[in-house]
């Protein structure tokens, strides 16, 4: 039995960072005993990292369609884990998998999902309070979850994981459940970009509508290379076909939290800011001095990027020797 259940994921043989963040969120809000569902071939070995990260119980699934990441089976597994754990709080993450699995799980449990939360807490009567951006980030809503089970998904990177404590002891048990798969994956095509992954980059250089075409992204790539970073884009630049959709930073794209985010020719619509506003230092270069991005940036240059950027890079080159 547990008070909270984290719907976890495994990446590269270990609990995903979003999963460790979910465990930390449950512990910090004082949920009590925390169970984690870990589906994946490496679940048995990943379980100890989950326990070190704050879990008391780990339910593992090491083979079958749920371990392979089939959404239908993952919903079935999550539902079985909720029943088995008796958890009152169910927390997932707004990852590729969580986006599908968490709402479906919530509806099966007779409730709905508090999705994309930046903060979760408990009020005096033990209700889960979830805070999340709405209206494309133009407003922020806090909701109290009603009913016997609360289901929430956390926006990745919005809370810190706990320091791993390898002395913690927990229980690991395989989860038995019935999977009913109807939507099947026929083919998966990876379009891996070159260089640093956008989500992990310490420096991100992003371009938007103001660049006017695909060619200027070469300059952005050059700058990103100088700084060991990655190139991102606003949705407008992706929709225009200037860069692949995998470059998109924003509400419906990737969430990045680099040390330095340089936005070039991006107006700073809330939709975009939702994906980069947690960057440590945000720098904006935009022709329009009234652009919203200048309300969110730490440093701004209101000017023509075609003149600002080459001089910036030249000076940078000099500084970096």
């Amino acid at each position, binding site marked *: 039995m547990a008070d909270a259940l984290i719907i976890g994921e495994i990446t590269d043989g270990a609990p995903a960072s979003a999963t460790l963040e979910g465990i930390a969120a449950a512990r910090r809000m004082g949920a009590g005993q925390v169970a984690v569902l870990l589906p994946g071939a490496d679940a048995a070995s990943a379980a100890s990292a989950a326990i070190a990260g704050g879990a008391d119980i780990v339910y593992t699934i090491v083979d079958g369609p749920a371990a392979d990441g089939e959404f239908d089976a993952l919903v079935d597994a999550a539902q079985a884990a909720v029943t088995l754990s008796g958890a009152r709080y169910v927390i997932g993450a707004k990852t590729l998998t969580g986006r599908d699995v968490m709402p479906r799980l919530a509806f099966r449990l007779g409730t709905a*999902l508090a*999705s994309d939360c930046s903060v979760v807490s408990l009020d005096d009567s033990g209700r889960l309070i979830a805070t999340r951006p709405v209206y494309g980030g133009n407003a922020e*809503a806090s909701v109290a979850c*009603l009913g016997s089970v609360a289901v929430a998904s956390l926006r990745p990177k919005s809370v810190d994981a706990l320091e791993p404590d390898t002395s913690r002891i927990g229980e690991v048990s395989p989860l038995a459940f019935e999977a009913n798969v109807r939507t099947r*994956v026929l083919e998966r095509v990876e379009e891996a970009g070159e260089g640093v992954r956008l*989500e992990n980059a310490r420096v991100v250089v992003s371009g938007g509508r103001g660049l006017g075409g695909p060619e200027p992204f070469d300059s952005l790539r050059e700058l990103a290379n100088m700084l060991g970073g990655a190139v991102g884009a606003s949705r407008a630049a992706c929709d225009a076909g200037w860069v692949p959709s995998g470059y998109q930073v924003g509400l419906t794209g990737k969430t990045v939290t680099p040390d330095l985010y340089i936005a070039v020719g991006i107006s700073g619509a809330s939709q975009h800011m939702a994906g980069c506003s947690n960057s440590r230092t945000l720098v904006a270069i935009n022709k329009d001095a009234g652009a919203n991005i200048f309300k*969110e940036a730490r440093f701004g240059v209101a000017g023509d990027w075609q*003149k600002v950027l080459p001089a910036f890079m030249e000076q940078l080159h000099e*500084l970096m020797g």
Partner: protein
Amino acid sequence: MTLHIVVTAKQVLDPETPLSAFNVADNAVSTAGNIPPVVNGYDEQAVEAALRIKEAHGDAKVTVLSCGTDFALDVIKKPLAMGADELVLLQDAAFENSIDPTMAVAALTAAIRKLGDVDLVISGRQASDWDNAQVPLGVAESLGWAVATIGRKVDVQDGTVRVERVLPDGHETVEAPLPAVVTVSNELGTPRYPNMRGIMAARRVQPTVWTVADLDLDGTASPAFELVSLKKPERAVQTEMITGDDDADAGRKLALRLREERVL
């Protein structure tokens, strides 16, 4: 047999509304002045996906379902002007636009059951107001249908639907048996503009209106949330604008300033 596609379309505040005209007060969001509402952008892409299937399939009917309290008819008729065949409005004070998707899921599910012969539901991946991204998944769960999300290409053949899904670093093709629910994303492409003939035809169509009394809403789940607060997010950033003799000079100074602050 006629392939019956339902598209769900929500009327929302125009998300392109400038931030300054965007008001948050008394736990509600509104826009200043007379900025008209729009059909949720991703839902227009859902209409586009349905029309492409109709063109490829030949014998198909596209019914648009919209749930709300009040409709601007010239706005919500846009899918008809684009080429959809029928419009059913689920209109009732009970269908208030709420952060809690429970009632919208129940109403859409009941309407799809009432239509009876639906093969495929296509929805936008999320609506630009609450950004919940869960009503289509809730409808699929309530109906017990298969589901595939965030499609950029949707094809129907031999009782199945094939969806090319957008992934963070690539794409995948999934297949599900009909009936099914599919959501689409902006990667599907720009929705077609209504032509004059479509606009004229849409004007003549009288939408069907169903209220709570027309729908079987027995067994609807109780509300999932209570809205505690709604506010504009606080922005704590102090912006420092870097200026110079000209744009190039400002660029150089930006690099020096970032070095000074040890950002670089």
